[in-house]
């Protein structure tokens, strides 16, 4: 709970290799139904809520930032309370449960709708790859499933020493899977050249661009997010300009029971950006990305899943 990044969860699950447990949960969900599943979901949420003070504090910090704007306050229906913190953690519990069910092969129980995805699918049809900027908002994992369904090749960048193991795990889980994990290694030149090769093959490269990497030296961009000065990693936003490829914001949020909505919005498609302007173009992309995050924090206020102090000294 303290570190709910998909990378960590993927590593953990892949390490334990508990495909049997995933299949059991999917079976449980499909056989006993959503109502029985709520027992597990609520149970986990209560446990998380009681056990993780860090997550409660982080949730409150986020909800307070959101409630500081009139739209955010309206979305929450008032100032944050202990109940809203619980609701936030409950939403995370639902998120994990759904993800596990889908991993276990239970995708048929879910309905997906798509927003603004035309540009991405048409880029994919013409063999043009692109950068997908995602966030710890909603379910990154549902995007993975979707890419499998539509035959998009998606490479997911993440900090891990276990890329090979995670890749093997997903292959075993679904042999048709077209998602691969690329290890992000800031201490070598490997990552960016791998990204370029993917884009040149017409594939997509997804990165969670809302978190600074733990302990790594990297370029940082400052902007205002939910009314507070916030640091974001700059590199993901530079790639589009350097490689001259389309850039999309890719999110998948839960709309209701077993219903997810994907948003794949094109935020930039410039090639031949002069070198002197690349940093500026990167900053522009960051601003567009942050605007979309804020829009979704208001639309689905409980699906922001950064359960750690997001604004360290706020």
């Amino acid at each position, binding site marked *: 709970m303290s570190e709910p990044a998909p990378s960590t969860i993927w590593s953990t699950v892949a390490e334990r290799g508990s495909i049997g447990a995933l299949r059991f949960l999917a079976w449980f969900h499909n056989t006993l139904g959503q109502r029985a599943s709520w027992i597990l979901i609520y149970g986990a949420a209560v446990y998380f809520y009681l056990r993780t003070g860090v997550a409660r504090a982080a949730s409150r910090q986020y909800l307070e930032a959101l409630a500081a704007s009139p739209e955010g306050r309206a979305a929450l229906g008032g100032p944050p309370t202990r109940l809203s913190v619980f609701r936030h953690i409950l939403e995370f519990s639902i998120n994990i449960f759904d993800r596990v069910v889908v991993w276990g092969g239970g995708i048929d129980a879910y309905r997906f709708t798509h927003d603004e995805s035309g540009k991405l699918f048409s880029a994919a049809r013409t063999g043009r790859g692109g950068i997908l900027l995602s966030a710890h908002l909603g379910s990154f994992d549902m995007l993975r499933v979707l890419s499998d369904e539509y035959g998009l090749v998606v490479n997911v960048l993440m900090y891990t020493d276990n890329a090979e193991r995670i890749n093997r795990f997903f292959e075993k889980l679904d042999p048709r899977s077209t998602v691969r994990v690329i290890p992000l290694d800031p201490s070598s030149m490997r990552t960016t050249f791998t990204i370029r*090769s993917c884009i040149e093959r017409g594939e997509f490269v997804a990165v969670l661009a809302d978190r600074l990497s733990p302990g790594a030296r990297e370029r940082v961009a400052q902007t205002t997010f939910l009314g507070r000065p916030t640091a974001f990693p700059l590199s993901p936003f530079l790639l589009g300009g350097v490689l001259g490829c389309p850039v999309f914001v890719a999110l998948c949020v839960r709309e209701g029971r077993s219903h997810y909505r994907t948003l794949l919005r094109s935020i930039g498609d410039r090639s031949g950006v002069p070198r002197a302007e690349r940093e500026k173009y990167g900053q522009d992309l960051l601003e567009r990305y942050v605007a979309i995050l804020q829009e979704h924090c208001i639309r689905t206020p409980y699906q922001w899943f950064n359960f750690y102090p997001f604004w360290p000294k706020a």
Partner: protein
Amino acid sequence: MADLQGLELEIKKLIIEVLALEDVAPEEIESEAALFIEGLGLDSIDALELAIALEERYGVTVEEDPEKNQELFSSVRSLAGFVTENRTK
């Protein structure tokens, strides 16, 4: 040998231009010194930008191979050697 030195200077100028190191003079970059992480402290986006610029200027192809690249981008001298061997323009 004079050619190689000329090429090294050209590459130093290219590095400064591509990576907008306005406060660095070409003479300050040592031909054998490390460029990335240590040395000039460039990162992997810088390496990619530099690779693209070298490809445009000299018609070389920088591949994905991480070990080769680690060596290739280790210094101006290794870049100059690579360009000399592989240039098509």
